[in-house]
């Protein structure tokens, strides 16, 4: 299975080669698509992890043991869908294809599993309906 997470590192955990251990010790495929390091405070990493549910669980436990907070990525993404007018301005910038217009209804579909928390839609939406905080 594949799952997307946001990891928040405390300063102390920055020196540990976390992704190396996730790959080598837990046999996980790791794909990083967004990273932010606020020197002296904390670091943020948005990533997709692929492996068996047991391996992923063990990898997450290991990360937590280093003081890394792990939360699923969809928790960082909010859309006020009931106010959406289906104009498609967000679709224009969504290079990860999480936001697409249904070709039949021409209504917006948001597949959060494809979101990479790039935040481009937050500025593209003319009604400011996205609340995406990769870094909280």
């Amino acid at each position, binding site marked *: 299975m594949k799952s997307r997470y946001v990891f928040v590192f405390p300063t102390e955990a920055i020196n540990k080669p976390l992704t190396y251990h996730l790959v080598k010790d837990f046999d996980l495929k790791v794909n990083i698509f967004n990273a932010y390091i606020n020197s002296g405070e904390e670091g943020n990493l948005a990533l997709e992890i692929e492996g068996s549910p047991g391996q992923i669980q063990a990898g997450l436990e290991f990360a937590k043991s280093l003081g890394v907070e792990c939360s699923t990525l969809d928790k960082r993404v909010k859309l006020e869908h009931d106010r959406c007018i289906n104009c498609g301005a967000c679709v224009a910038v969504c290079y990860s294809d999480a936001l697409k217009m249904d*070709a039949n209804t021409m209504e917006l579909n948001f597949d959060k599993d494809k979101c990479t928390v790039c935040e481009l839609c937050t500025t*593209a939406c003319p009604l400011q309906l996205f609340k995406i905080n990769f870094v909280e």
Partner: protein
Amino acid sequence: MKKIKTYSEINERIKNGNAVVMTAGEFKELANHSKPGELANKVDVVTTATFGPMCSSGAFINFGHSGPPMRLEKISLNDVPAYGGIAAADAYVGATETANPHDKYGGAHVIEDLVSGKDIRLKASSKGTDCYPRKEIETKINIESVNEAFLFNPRNAYQNYAAAVNSQRRKLYTYMGVLLPSCGNVNYSTSGEYSPLLNDPDMRSIGVGTRIFLGGTQGFVAWHGTQFITSRPRNESGIPVLPAATLSLIGNLKEMSAEFIKAAYYEKYGTSLFVGVGIPIPVLDEDMAARLAIRNEQIETQVFDYGLSERPVVKKVNYKELQSGEIELGGRKVRTAPLSSISAAKNIMKLLKEEVSTGKFLINEPVEHFPKNTTNKALEGIEHG
């Protein structure tokens, strides 16, 4: 061409509740297996619609007179400047006006707030005259408290519009939305085969006085819109392949709904107003039926490169390709996005069909047809030595 029916015959059927009314979507499906003559005999009215960001929009408001009376000269509504250079208690608030250059709240938001029934803070000043001695006022107004409030939009409902792409290496923030670098997306902005002026491209039934759906109520075509260009090249289906005709629209803001009047803010561009416009088109004869049968693949537009100042044409595309979600550009697939809400246009067509079918909405014959053979003039600056 043989005239099949007149406006008065169609209106008689509407009043009696026997008119055959279809949305543009339904009519085009029927047209797949019917000839124009059969369609013209069978169908009376076809509803068309668009719901896009239309910057050239605004509202006239009369606030009523204060005691002692005042000529409101410098006016703001929720700090957004409104034009007061007309009679004492009248003002015009334009959709793109803002208090400060980078504000996300502008005239469009004032208009949406008015339509939603919210209170608006009015501030005004005046030099004071013998007949209008008062110099300052600060108060609250709302849609109920003002005498008149009507939307009067100089340029809406564009007949076709160019699509936009950006070949440069930085993002562009435009009224056509965010354009990603290296041709990362193509944005377009019409409702294609549902769009009013693409269904009656010669404007045989659309002119001064045409009754329309505007922002949730009945409004009218006031005039041909600004930048009204009839001389654009047309394709073999008779459709202009560049931005061509436009409409100036008027309607009672007091009867409008915030569902169809929606304020927008485009990053680093400014504010605009989504306006819901629906136009019922009478199927007077075979020619009208044939025009109404037009499909997205017959409606073409050009993709302009907004990354270069001369905006060269990159490609000719049709709306079937654009609405599919991606087009081919320079040997790769590029995502497309509409900017104008096609699902809202569908909803307006349905509502308008219901209004016409139940006798609440009659078809006006234009009082005056629009000018033919108009061109566009450019503005030349004067160099100061």
